């Protein structure tokens, strides 16, 4: 009988150690762990914004600009996956992670619209309707950028 509690203790200790190791492996969504993906997305949305600007001023082609938007969409996707892989422990962490994911998804949506607008803008910016569409998209990108920026400032990610 006396053996069994000791055995249980050993097993419990081992479990705690294993859990600790596992927790160490799957990082928590601290400001530190979110920094990389957040910066990646922030860079991506700014690049797309620049591409739309260049397209509005007729400095770049529809193909090159939409390729840029498409590449940035890929970057945001991979950053989103990275954040999804983080496991939140506390309520606070869960909120932060969800906020970040929300910001990412609005960036993602804006990028999708940007890509579509850019690839259909092959008539050139002289086409009034196309130009209007591009300005709308630009506004959307800016809004998504601001949302992400303010979140990053709030969470102390610089």
């Amino acid at each position, binding site marked *: 009988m006396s053996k069994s509690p000791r055995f249980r203790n050993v097993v419990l200790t081992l479990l705690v150690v294993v859990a600790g190791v596992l927790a160490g492996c799957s990082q928590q969504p601290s400001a530190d762990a979110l920094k990389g993906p957040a910066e990646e997305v922030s860079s991506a949305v*700014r*690049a797309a914004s620049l591409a739309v600007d*260049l397209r509005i001023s007729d*400095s*770049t082609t529809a193909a*090159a600009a939409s*390729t840029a938007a*498409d*590449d940035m969409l890929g970057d945001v996707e991979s950053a989103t996956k990275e954040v999804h892989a983080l496991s939140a422990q506390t309520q606070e962490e869960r909120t932060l992670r969800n906020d970040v994911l929300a910001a990412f998804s609005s960036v993602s949506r804006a990028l999708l619209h940007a890509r579509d607008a850019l*690839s259909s803008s092959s008539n050139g910016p002289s086409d009034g309707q196309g130009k209007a569409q591009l300005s709308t998209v630009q506004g959307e990108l800016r809004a998504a950028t601001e949302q992400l920026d303010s979140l990053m400032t709030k969470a102390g990610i610089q």
Partner: protein
Amino acid sequence: MKRLLGVALGILTAIGGFVDIGDLVTNAVVGSRFGMSLAWVVLVGVVGICLFANMSGRVAAVSGRATFEVIRERLGPRAGLANLGASFLINVMTVTAEIGGIALALQLASGVAYILWVPFALLAVWLVVWRVKFSIMENVTGLVGLSLVVFAVALFLLKPDWGALAGQAFSPSVPAQEGAGVYWYYAIALFGAAMTPYEVFFFSSGAVEERWKIKDLAQSRLNVLLGFPLGGLLSIAIAGCAAVVLLPAGISVTSLSQVALPVAQAGGQLALAVLILGVVAATFGAALETTLSSGYTLAQFFGWSWGKFRRPAQAARFHVSMIVVLLAGVAVLATGVDPILVTEYSVVFSAIALPLTYLPILIVANDPQYMGKHVNNRAVNIAGVIYLFVILVASLAAIPLMIATGAGA
């Protein structure tokens, strides 16, 4: 007059041939993250590649032996095979990256997904390797690749604060938002991109292909000593464009489409078109060079018959191995791996393999049995040994830095 034309052609080809996807991507990434604070590495790398390309060209012209024959003969089968394995792996990675680069540039031009351009790029590269004369191949890709000068033009059109750029370049420091480890990791990547071993394999084998003699050495020295530094200036201009436009905007480069943004901003659609032409030519030329290099290294290690001056039937194993390498590269791309990522790894692995390539060249360039009276002079030897030391340090530091920084993330 004709001679002068030949000299000009050689220099222009060397400039256009200097930049490949590795230089393009690494310089743009570095410019967008570190500004001009790593420009000194390009300078160090260019001096190194001039030194050793020249040396290997001289060995090839005087003795008729290309670099990998020398490596096998001096290092013996064991160390030689280790070197072959490393060089061959890097060659395949670089072939993959260059073919990916061609496809990415064509996507930029057309908007059609790059993966659909890959088979086309593969076929084009193979056809040139199979059928086109060596000198034509070199001159055409080199001259068209010269359109990358658009980066330098764009930098001027952007009217940057030259003083600030020069300040970053001449008193380099690690930017506040980046760690010192990442800074040195990219320093090694830039060094590897400038000094990629395939350039030496290609250069020395090219000397044999074009049947250089001792009297051609003056011309080749001129090509290298003028062409490569000017090519290095192009590299710095790529970093400069990224530093002026992308760094202040908070954009760090992860794709080729971002590299094009500053050029489009400076010069509009015309500049963009020239840029795409230049990138296609530069990556296409480099794809040819790396494909040939993988054939050269294998053939020279095992003593097979090689060279584009022979009919393919007279160099069967050489041509079969190049076909296999091209297919392997395309198979890697077919997995959907990002070609830019392959590029970033290939330049770092290049840095790791550098000492094995450059030590035997330095030794043979001093051996009178090979070189007769054309052995290295003292100044070249001193520079060579200093570089060997730098190369060794970079090579040893590369893997620890890669692990510590998560490959520069």
